């Protein structure tokens, strides 16, 4: 029995790593005494399947994981039971049962929505600046890679949408995952390199608000029937 869970990784745990987050959720599931399935083999552990890891320092409002259960539990009981067994900064928002052969989150999630709290040297026309940015024919950025040489790539085709959400809060919808991944730090870098009045900001200024599935020109939540049942 597979269940898909949407949760938030809030401010209090923004500095814990992906692996630490997984262990925390596993221990929460144990404390909640849920009938979870364990992996087979030498070192049985609770199998969690998360989406694209969230960078250390960032808050995530709608993160997801899939989990196998031995027995069905009522959704409401699952949500409230797990929330009582997790630190308050990890908040279970929603859950739904999905078919056992559902495509993994890693395989379907290909889009992320980031909110960046901007920092300007002086007052600027935010709409106009952002408009100018997205209308560049090409947005070349440097990708830093661990133990490998830097690489230059064009961010533009992977930038689906950008808008000013609020005063100095900018929203970016970009490609994420194995078929092309835009890092928020690269968006910030690209902006500050092109506009003198924009300061570079650290990752703690970024929130991953959504993780979505892009099909053609449409975006769906990983909970959507059309994603779960396809």
């Amino acid at each position, binding site marked *: 029995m597979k269940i898909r869970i949407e949760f938030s990784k809030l401010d209090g745990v923004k500095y814990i790593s992906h692996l630490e987050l997984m262990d925390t959720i596993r221990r929460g599931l144990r404390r909640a005494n849920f009938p979870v399935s364990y992996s087979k083999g030498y070192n049985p552990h609770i199998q969690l399947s998360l989406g694209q890891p969230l960078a250390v*320092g960032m808050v995530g409002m709608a993160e997801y994981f899939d989990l196998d259960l031995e027995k069905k539990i009522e959704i409401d009981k699952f949500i409230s039971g797990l929330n009582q067994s997790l630190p308050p900064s990890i908040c279970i928002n929603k859950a739904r049962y999905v078919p056992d052969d559902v495509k993994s989150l890693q395989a379907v999630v290909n889009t992320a929505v980031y909110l960046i709290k901007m920092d300007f040297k002086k007052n600027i026309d935010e709409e106009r600046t952002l408009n100018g940015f997205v209308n560049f024919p090409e947005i070349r950025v440097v990708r830093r890679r661990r133990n490998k040489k830097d690489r230059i790539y064009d961010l533009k085709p992977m930038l689906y949408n950008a808008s000013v959400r609020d005063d100095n809060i900018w929203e970016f919808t970009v490609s994420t995952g194995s078929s092309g991944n835009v890092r928020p730090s690269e968006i910030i870098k690209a902006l500050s390199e092109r506009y003198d009045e924009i300061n570079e900001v650290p990752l703690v200024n970024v929130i991953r608000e959504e993780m979505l599935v892009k099909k053609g020109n449409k975006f769906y939540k990983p909970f959507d029937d059309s994603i779960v049942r396809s």
Partner: protein
Amino acid sequence: MKVKEKIENLLYKVSNPERYIGNEWNQIKKDWESHRIKMALAFPDVYEIGMSHLGLRLIYQLINEEEDMICERCFAPWFDLEELMREKNYSLYALESGREIKDFDVFAFTLQYEMSYTAILNMLDLAEIPIMAEERDESYPLIIGGGATVYNPEPLAPFFDLFYIGEAEVGLIDLLRKYKILKKESRSRSKILEELSEIPGVYVPSFFQPVYNNGQFTGIKKVRGNKETVNRQIVKNLDKSFYPVEMIVPYKDIVHNRAYLEIARGCTHGCRFCAAGMSYRPVRERSKENLVELADEILQSTGYEEISLTSLSTADHSEIEELVKILAERYQQKNISISLPSLRVDEFSVELAREVQRVRKTGLTFAPEAGTQRLRDVINKGVKEENLYTAVRAAFNAGWHRIKLYFMIGLPTETEADLAGIVNMAKKVLKIGKDIRKNTDKKMKPIEVQVSVGTFVPKAFTPFQWVRMNDKMEIEKKQDYLRRNLRGRGLKFSWNDPELSLIEGLIARGDRRLASVIKEVWKQGSRFDGWSQHFKAKRWFEALEDKGYDLNDYLRERDYIEKLPWQHINMGIDLEFLQKECEKAYKRELTEDCRQGKCHGCNICFNFDVDLVLAGKEEGIIHEN
């Protein structure tokens, strides 16, 4: 003032930011109400080491059980965060409330190893508290210390207001409550210390004054208060004593990331080099009924997937076989594993380990400590060579492929034959493993024997507190010999930095004068001396020279009639017993474990009205005196 909120958004600049955020599962965050006495509990090392220490977790919950008390945690910030804090002028803070240490009534340090002492000074300084006790008035938190190395508190004496000698469960709460009343009455720091010094186990170092003659320590003089000596405080019945069940579950993968269950306290094997074996007497075991109940509660509360049955010698517990069987059966379904640290060198221990390690067979550790029967007799390590071979044979047959052997060099009376003995034993173990692997039809990884060789450091309140420690040349020569001879496929040799051991030896038997050396070394920039990559021996040697002290004088042999800097601390063990044990060592005479029934006259039970408590047994020990 709350610092944590301000610092939190800068933590992306430092390594391992999750060390500094708190808010873990089971953290206790109480309202900052004025009627509550507030204690910040510090471990002078980084989070993942401090949180792996059972004593810290125990005290944390013990104090927080009290409605009128708050206990919060504080760890040493790593170099990068320290730099940031100093640059921004942020004071050291506690994890729970995020408040400055200065806001607390008490700042308590757990003393676990000598090499953490520079970190204590650094934490005081980061908390904007003067490091010297004499420079602090009642507006500063009371600085207190306790723990495994408190039994020779002298090198730290000028930095602390008081030390608590012994087990915290006995008197720490009384101490805090009394302090709260005195503080409310607006007494002076000096008056407060006078009152607190009346509490059993409380040692106020400024009430004692060491005397030196011709540069030699010749005794310590009481200058204030009513106590000539300070008695170690001991929990009489561990089974009825407090145990922390709702343990904090760190986010970070700490050094020992599992639930702990302290099954017993104390060890009476009587190894003559071992400080813990002398300073945690007598043995007190918890009953298996209580332990099973505690295990259930801890695992339910934490969600941990592993539980460790801790004590100084786990296999000694009178009911260990049944306990392990019950727990293994109970938790197999829940995929919870059981770990047994500190096993003895015998087949029984391997059987136990086999019982719990149904999965994931990696390594087993044995500690024969010395390479020949002669030297093992000298140190009273009741292990025969054949015990080791039987044990490893059982281990290899059960599927373990990696054996770690722990030895010491520099023990009294050691000769080259003893070093050769280490090499022989290691090679023999390797051969036993290889033969078993050749003849088995089971799949087995290549045999690996890791030989870890530490350097013997004489410690206070052990029978070897009088013996000379090896010097640098001797240690290096011995390590060279082992390096040359412990070679070949399947053999791995590891050793300690000789200079680090020497400094540990310096402080372990040091007197109050060394405080100025520790202070100087800290001023030169030392913080994490226990981390070999950050240990700078040169600073220590220079500081010693600068202050006019001789390392060799601290490492030399002491005469029985000499006064020792820690003699005003009463461990409850007779000095005559330690001396007799030291003499027996040189005669190769063994002293058997008193749990077998025969008393050997350490006199702890008489001196402090305590008893050996063995689970499931009515009678403890028959005293002959």
